[in-house]
């Protein structure tokens, strides 16, 4: 299935892009991050991130569906 992944901050710099569409068999955000850490060499572990699916915070074990938009959220620093 096709997923859309958007990258911000340190994730964007390490991926070298702000978004991509990816054909994947990843069933969950955890599976997807496992694929992407190999593809892009992200230095952050899953434990250091949060994940959002379709612009809402998500569990790492949520089932993904075709067309879902996934964002991995590194440690935040607003204010």
């Amino acid at each position: 299935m096709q997923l859309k992944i958007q990258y911000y901050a340190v994730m964007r710099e390490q991926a070298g892009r702000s978004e991509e569409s990816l054909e994947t068999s990843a069933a969950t955000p955890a599976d997807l991050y496992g694929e992407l850490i190999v593809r892009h060499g992200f230095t952050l572990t899953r434990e250091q991130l949060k994940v959002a699916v379709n612009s809402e915070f998500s569990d790492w074990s949520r089932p993904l569906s075709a067309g879902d938009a996934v964002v991995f959220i590194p440690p935040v620093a607003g204010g």
Partner: protein
Amino acid sequence: MRFRFTQTAIDTAEARGELLDLGAGGYVSFEGWVRDHNEGQDVIRLEYEAFQELAVKEGERIVAEALRRFPVRHALCIHRVGTLALSDMAVWVGVSSAHRGEAFDACRFIIDEVKHRVPIWKKEHYRSGDSGWVNCERCAAAPHHGHHHEPAVSPVHK
């Protein structure tokens, strides 16, 4: 909207006006400014970016929580994104209330929660030429894979 982003300078007079209420006996605000130092480095400018769709939702939830927890009249938070110079205002929080105590409490609650929960990131640029994502120093501490990557987390040496 009780939480919003702006690409330009925060208009505090306009924002304060949104909190006016005949039942309010006072108002408390917090301004976050760009500081010239952080963790021993001389900072020369900052870049803020946000995952705005989710950030606005989470920011709205924080202000709504503040309005439930503290008996205040109105509350608003505005966060700037883009490149900011020293002394520029990065964030503004304002709360109006019948009495001052809960206005201070609600204002403090909102800025603390925004800093911890809202997907906003800050990249510091240093006088030395280095730059780094704030709160991300430890992020590269223990990459689980074995092969080497350039450390793209702070401080990045150019």
